[in-house]
């Protein structure tokens, strides 16, 4: 690289950092105050983009930008008042589920309003050309962005440090209980913060229009980028977000400049993993006042009543009889349901009793699936042996990654699981010789005696029923209690001689192993495996299933998995806007049964 290209790549990085910062700042603010992991933040950004393109044709680009941001802010206030307010008190992470549902609804709404095609907006009037810099041409608009990012940053810092409202926001970020004790009107503080966050997201989206067409994929891309920036910077820290945006954008720009463009696939996740391992609370984050687990710790986990146990046995018996009554597709769908039930239960095993968030559980599902495929095809093993050994790969992966993850807490730990999952995903994506790259591996079929749908269904039923009962039994074993002890009161657990980290680590490995079983079953049921099987979407699916079912229940994840799988299948077949429908059903459930479906089955004590 010549000096001039180094300079220009540096400027490229600065411009990207500015746009990253705008979304990340809003997300960070919202999380800091409300503790909501706003999954729909990328959707607000996407709305900002679409609105700006649409408005630019009518009122011109420069009027469109503030207008779009204002409309998104208004929309944010509606969302906060009508939806989020009702669920601040609900178990943690439920908000995540609600905002995920919102994401689905907004995506389909955008498709409905603006159609499927990418909308390339206008260039910004006055900034359409390029200026000569160091012998190269550099777009004027990028220069404008480079200035805008720091301007917004300074502006936010001023609001936060100089206004009364800002001081309250900072107080609430550091200690929510204290802020409410100070007599802060939490409701309006929360609304205000959410609106400001939405405004920033909308602004970020609108300002992106001259660089990128508005499209329906942008919500997920942006939310994952923004999460990474927020976590790397330290949750709730605006200067941290600024620094992290800068760091990540520059690293990416220079990866490209130096010819390692493939590395950008997961670069942000590698940076995040490195930062979290070295600095458990991000670059400028502080140790949270009180580390809390995934559940409201004080909820009891009642022992299953004899009635419930009888019901479960009857259910398994009924499932075993299904092939008599109906063949074909019912079995295919039930096979999927069973596999995802085991997957969800394995995720619940660490989220419920152990109180460890995981946003990357799909990694272990995928490791099991890929190991099955690789052992079977490359290793030329018999299918039975491949199926038996594959979960060990997942368990081993969980053992390695778990060691790091249990050293962190809360959202940081969750984001580290996500980072590892993305790194594994990218390995599967890039390692053509072993994994078949983006195409994946095809031709992973069961042995002849298991090849029929009925036989494979029985195999799945057997493995999943055994796996699930093992995990459930483990919850009520001393080990399960030790996990809950570490979640309820790490202090007390330590004082009675329990090694909380070791227990969590073991739980991580067990959950990984179980997820690996479901992954291996999945691979042989589909005949193929490709990187999607361990993508973010799969991890999110797992979270949705667990939370739909109820994190503080025992059987909930199974009902959640069944409902979610069935809903996707049925809705996708019959309804064009099935994503929105799934989102609406989730929202309805979140509002109606905030403790999850499991409570309907179990009843409350």
């Amino acid at each position: 690289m010549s000096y001039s290209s180094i300079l220009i790549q540096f400027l490229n990085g600065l411009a990207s950092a500015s746009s990253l910062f705008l979304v990340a700042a809003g997300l960070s603010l919202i999380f800091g105050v409300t503790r909501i992991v706003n999954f729909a933040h990328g959707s607000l950004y996407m709305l900002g983009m679409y609105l700006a393109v649409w408005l630019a044709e009518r009122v011109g680009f420069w009027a469109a930008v503030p207008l779009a941001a204002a409309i998104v802010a208004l929309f944010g206030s509606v969302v906060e008042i009508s939806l989020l307010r009702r669920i601040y008190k609900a178990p943690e992470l439920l908000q995540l589920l609600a905002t995920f549902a919102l994401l689905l609804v907004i995506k389909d709404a955008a498709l409905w309003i603006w159609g499927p095609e990418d909308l390339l907006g206008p260039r910004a009037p006055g900034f359409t050309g390029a200026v000569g810099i160091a012998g190269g041409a550099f777009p004027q608009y990028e220069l404008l962005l480079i200035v805008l990012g720091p301007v917004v940053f300074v502006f936010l810092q001023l609001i936060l440090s100089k206004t009364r409202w800002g001081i309250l926001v900072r107080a609430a970020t550091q200690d929510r209980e204290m802020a409410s004790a100070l007599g802060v009107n939490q409701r309006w503080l929360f609304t205000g913060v959410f609106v400001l966050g939405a405004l920033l997201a909308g602004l970020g989206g609108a300002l992106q229009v001259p660089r990128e067409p508005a499209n329906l994929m942008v919500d997920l891309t942006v939310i994952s980028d923004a999460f990474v920036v927020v976590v790397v910077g330290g949750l709730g820290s605006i200067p941290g977000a600024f620094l992290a945006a800068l760091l990540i954008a520059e690293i990416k720009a220079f990866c490209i400049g130096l010819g390692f463009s493939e590395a950008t696939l997961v670069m942000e996740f590698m940076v995040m993993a490195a930062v979290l391992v070295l600095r458990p609370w991000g670059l400028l984050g502080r140790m949270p006042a009180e580390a809390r687990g995934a559940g409201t710790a004080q909820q009891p986990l009642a022992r299953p009543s004899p009635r419930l146990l009888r019901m479960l046995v009857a259910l398994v018996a009924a499932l075993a009889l299904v092939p008599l009554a109906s063949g074909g597709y019912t079995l295919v769908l039930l096979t999927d349901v069973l596999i995802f039930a085991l997957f969800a239960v394995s995720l619940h095993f660490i989220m419920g009793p152990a109180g460890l968030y995981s946003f990357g559980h799909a990694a272990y599902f995928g490791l099991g699936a890929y190991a099955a495929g690789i052992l079977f095809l490359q290793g030329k093993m018999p299918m039975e042996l491949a199926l038996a050994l594959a979960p060990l790969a997942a368990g081993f992966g969980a053992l390695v990654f778990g060691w790091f993850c249990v050293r962190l807490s809360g959202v940081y730990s969750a984001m580290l699981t996500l980072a590892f999952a993305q790194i594994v995903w990218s390995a599967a994506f890039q390692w053509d010789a072993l994994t078949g790259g983006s195409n994946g591996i095809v031709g992973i079929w069961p042995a002849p005696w298991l090849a029929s749908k009925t036989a494979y269904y029985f195999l799945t039923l057997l493995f999943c029923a055994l796996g699930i009962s093992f995990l459930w039994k483990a919850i009520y074993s001393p080990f399960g209690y030790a996990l809950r002890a570490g979640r309820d009161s790490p202090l007390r657990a330590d004082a009675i001689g329990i090694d909380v980290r070791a227990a969590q680590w073991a739980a991580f490995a067990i959950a990984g192993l179980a997820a690996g079983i479901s992954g291996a079953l999945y691979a042989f049921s589909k005949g193929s495996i490709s990187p999607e099987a361990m993508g973010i979407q799969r991890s999110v699916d797992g979270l949705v299933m667990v939370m739909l079912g109820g994190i503080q229940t025992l059987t909930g994840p199974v009902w959640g998995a069944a409902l979610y799988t069935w809903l996707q299948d049925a809705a996708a077949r019959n309804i064009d806007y099935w994503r929105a429908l799934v989102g609406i059903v989730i929202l309805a459930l979140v509002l109606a049964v905030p403790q999850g479906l499991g409570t309907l089955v179990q009843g409350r004590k």
Partner: protein
Amino acid sequence: MKLLCLLALLLVSTGVSAQTIKIGELNSYKVFPAFLEPYKKGMELALEEINRAGGVNGRKLELVSRDDGGNPGDAVRVAEELITRENVALLTGTFASNIGLAVSNLAAQRKIVFIAAEPLTDKMVWENGNRYTFRLRASTYMQTAMLIPEAVKLKKVRWAIVYPNYEYGQSATASFKKLLAKAQPGVQFVAEQAPPLGKIDAGAVVQALIDAKPEAIFSSLFAADLQKFVREGNLRGLFKNTSVFNLLGGEPEYLDPLKDETPEGWWVTGYPWSEIRTPAHQKFLDAYRKRWNDYPRLGSVVGYAAIYSAANAIRKAGGTDTEKLIAALKGLEMDTPFGPIVYRAHDHQSTMGAYVGQLSARGGKGRMVNWRFADGANFLPPFEEVRILRKE
């Protein structure tokens, strides 16, 4: 709860008359709507035409279309549903390579014919080819090969390559390098940029390409990535003294959004729908516009021809028996809006071609100029090579 009841109602499948022949179709409608909505319209047009003309072998065709959820696992389940519950005669559809391959693999396992309509991956009919799978569209290899003659003519030595980092981009790049190096010994590939699909950091990529000082560029970017690349490249002067070849760049799906920024003189494969004057195309064009009050995109042609492929195969087979369908599809000759095609008996690849031409912006719109039709048959490797790839 009401919603659930509603859903349950919807689930009760509608009664289907035994007279119809069902064609099962699955695609990632929610993930690639820009391509697949016109595709669906093309399919429906074909279906209506066929049924208006009395159907096939005296029976009406019925299209059972499903969203495949955008991932292979769900796609396989959806395909199973089409096979077992809907009893479809054959499967068609799919867009992304990995989903196409997964469904093809399932088709072989469940012994049902699969006509892959859109996936471009070469593996579909070669490395991973099987006797149940046929493919309609010109593959990555074929379309890349179509650009080679023009690329060779330019006699440029320093080439840079940019491609989306997944199967399609990787194999386009590999084919291009191999074919060009063979046709023009001494050619140099001075830079390669592989941004993640849908996430190109266009400014940095363009700058990196400028640094490499290429004389020509081969790109297989499309959709949002292409739009960002074009805008940044225009602004930063990347294209000023550089010839650019862009696979798929002339397809209306990807060309139309570029509007007045359409770069001049790029060589692309695509579909200049407004200028093709062949009777076959004119007929299709008129019918499509009449039916949908919209112009066709490339997807429309693919969907239209896919349904006709299925119908012709069933007609030729005299029924829906899988073995007979395979026999019928092998060497099936038929007309498409792009002219006559053959499904090659050896590798099940159709000879559907593509249009090769240059881009130009006129009146705020991008179009293809200097175009010619490249018949797919001329850009396929000989059977001997294919046989080795198919491990037959």
